[in-house]
């Protein structure tokens, strides 16, 4: 008796909302930028951006925060897609920290993330004078994200102040900025991880191979499987990489991205695996785990 709602109808509504947010951002901000981190969410974000302005080309540049510790495959994928899609790609890096030899192995996860991601992002935004950065954060990723706005204000110095966040009514956005304020914009706020995958499937969006299971060289540390992506990975004494069929639920810096054992080497299997496993995707992210509410602490510093 009860009708069922087709999944694609839910996706249509999420898509329309994201497109609305894109158009508002492109028109209202002086110099917006799309933050592209190469992962599945970024792939969806980019796909939606291109749809939003069709038949015109993407009206803003794309920026990647490159820590130099990304998977090799990610960088190859990024450069190939940039050419295929004719993107105006900017790369932001913390050159100073790189020169000082900051690595995830030597400086601890938190300090490494602050320097190579947060500071690099802040510097990139300042250097190009972007007033809005559009990113792929979703409210279902982590508890403190549940209160994130779609248009999320950053105070001078890129500081996120929970008390200054603007109330959001209807589809109407207050995109006004006081001097030195900037905006983060999250068109995927209301999407879930499964929505992302279903949309990738429906729209046939290309994503890096790392999401699919394949024999890869890994070592196990503290219950987490890490892939030895290049010779910079410092192996402990007696530690030998073993080949395992693994895939990644989120892509970031390879020393910080835990792999999951899996045989899902295609989208359909992957979605089935997703639907049966119920662990949140950020559980594989080593950078979030330090102390309660650490995402909130990082955001206050200017992390995405």
């Amino acid at each position: 008796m009860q009708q069922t709602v087709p999944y694609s109808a839910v996706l249509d509504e999420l898509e329309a909302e994201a497109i609305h947010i894109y158009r508002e951002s492109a028109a209202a901000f002086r110099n917006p930028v799309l933050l592209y981190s190469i992962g599945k969410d970024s792939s969806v974000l980019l796909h939606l951006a291109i749809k939003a302005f069709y038949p015109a080309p993407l009206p803003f540049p794309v920026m990647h925060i490159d820590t130099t510790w990304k998977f090799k495959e990610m960088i190859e994928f990024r450069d190939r897609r940039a050419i295929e899609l004719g993107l105006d790609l900017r790369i932001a890096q913390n050159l100073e920290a790189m020169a000082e030899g900051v690595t995830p192995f030597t400086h601890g996860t938190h300090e490494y993330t602050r320097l190579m991601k947060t500071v690099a992002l802040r510097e990139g935004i300042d250097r190009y004078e972007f007033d809005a950065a559009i990113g792929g954060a979703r409210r279902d990723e982590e508890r403190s994200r549940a209160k994130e706005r779609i248009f999320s204000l950053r105070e001078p110095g890129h500081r996120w102040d929970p008390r200054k966040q603007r109330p959001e009514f209807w589809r109407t956005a207050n995109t006004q900025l006081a001097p030195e304020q900037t905006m983060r914009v999250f068109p995927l706020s209301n999407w879930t991880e499964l929505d992302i995958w279903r949309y990738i499937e429906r729209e046939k969006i290309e994503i890096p191979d790392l999401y699919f299971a394949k024999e890869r060289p890994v070592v196990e540390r503290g219950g987490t499987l890490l892939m030895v992506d290049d010779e910079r990975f410092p192996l402990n004494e007696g530690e030998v990489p073993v080949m395992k069929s693994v895939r990644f639920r989120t892509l970031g810096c390879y020393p910080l991205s835990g792999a999951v054992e899996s045989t899902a080497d295609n989208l359909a299997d992957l979605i089935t695996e997703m639907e049966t496993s119920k662990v949140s995707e950020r559980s594989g992210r080593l950078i979030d785990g330090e102390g309660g509410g650490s995402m909130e602490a990082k955001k206050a510093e200017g992390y995405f």
Partner: protein
Amino acid sequence: MSGQTPVLHLVTCGSVDDGKSTLIGRLLVETDSVPIDQLEYARTTRRGGSTVPVGEVDYSLLTDGLEAEREQGITIDVAYRHLNLPNGRRVLIADSPGHEQYTRNMAVAASNGDVAVLLVDAARGVRPQTHRHLTVCALMGVQTIIVAVNKMDLVDYSHEVFEQVMGEVRTTAARLGVQQIDGIPVSAVTGANVATKSDVMPWYKGESLLGALAVWEPVGRVADEGFRFPVQFIVRAEGNFRGYAGTVVAGSVRLGDEIVVADSGRTAKIARIVTADGDLEVARYGQAVTLTLDHEVDVTRGDILAAGTSLQPADRFGVDMVWLGEEPLAHGRSYLLISGSRSVPATVTNVRHRLDVVSGHEHAARVLNMNDIGRVEIATDRPIPMDPYSMCRDTGGFLLVDRVTADTVAAGLSRHAMRRAFNVVPHVYDVDHQARSSLMGHPARVVWLTGLSGSGKSTIADAAVRKLHAMGIHTYVLDGDNMRTGLNKDLGFTPEDRAENVRRVAEVSKLMRDSGVVVFVALVSPFRSDRESASSLFGKGDFIEVFVDTPVEICSERDPKGLYAKAAAGNLPNMTGVGQAYEPPLNADLVVHGTGDIDSSADLLVSAILEA
């Protein structure tokens, strides 16, 4: 719209004490919407004051976000969550804080809400904040309110307790004009009637809470009458492509349809409906598309493309306002008004009253402070089109922004457009309508009869006036056609002229009412916004809107003036009900049927007038 609503926007109201966090937590868990690791966290972590034993799920921890709030043990903001119903429907939950003074957060959460779940603690009954939540939900346009009478386990699942709560809530909801209200007896702690029907309350025959959310459908979108498309972005591409990108926020539009640029009044036809997935024949509510027009007209970002119900620019509006800013509303100060994708400087010219959100009373006020709701008048620097909020949230709602800090300081809900002359200061006379009315010995009111031509407005007014006259009550009838032979003989039947016609008749009726007379207005007055303008001239109870509801087939059969025949012959293009739309009242004070007994209709009017 056909098919099921894929995404339902839900707002939850109530405090932690009512068991709200537990209820939402349970909804999330029962629909498998919580990842295992977060569930584990809720089993092992405890905050100060928690009475839930470690090892069991503390549901309230699933719905908390920020560190500051975990420390204080209160919710300080609106949180957004989702759940998936078994039938595939997505529910987006805006969870507003229970803390009493945060009316503004409640308003944010309700602004997009289709359905509100309002928690009432069965053991404590209806409390002031229940009224507050109802008022804010009704104001923000939430269509359906589901009252979850919680903690039924603490009152022995008593049917009487449930009915008593619902009785009180229904009374308030009726006063507020809530369209649909349902009650569900639940226990968030035991799970009774949350996800599945429980057999501990056999007297309850309705759905479980999740069941009710699964079958909910909108009760006919009022907005389907008019098409509204605020232009966000001008798309220019190769081959002289020029398209207007935006989202359909009301109604729908089809290839070849004529639209009007609401700002300039220029018209054009839809040439293409462009999307990245190919062109469409029709663009419906909620779709983000790019429209091209059949010829060049001036359209810029912020303009509204409209069809159906008329939409004209104005520079004075009567609005309800939710004050959000920490600094109070400043009279005469210039703010930036953001309506859709348009922004224009605006000032608040008058504060009419502040609403007591608990009692519903209107209090005289000069300022609005944070969390206050009030009726104010605003003036914009240049005319802009805004719909009444009741017709469309996106074209009737707006933000006020501080021009220095760029903070959002208020959310406004347009009620009606006004036109008013500057530099006129009305003199206030001591002998007012109340003094005159007491001398007359009966109340002075305006009875506004609206309905199609031939619906029986004049006939019913005539019958009521005869009865009142016999009772010694002073009356007068302002009849549409009679007015058009004199005061309004310069006006035609375009929407603009009809608006002016209604405005003049309303002003005259106000003068006559002030003289102490019961005034009947028998006027087609087809447009809702015009009638709202008229009613805004009067205090509560002084203006009685009567909808004379007669089907157009019967009116055209009666055709006492031969107008329908002329319209059928094509000689009256603006005939209401034929060439022009009639917008029936949504909340008429009285509905009488023109096909019914005239004498009893007249009696209904008489008793409404004499009611204290």
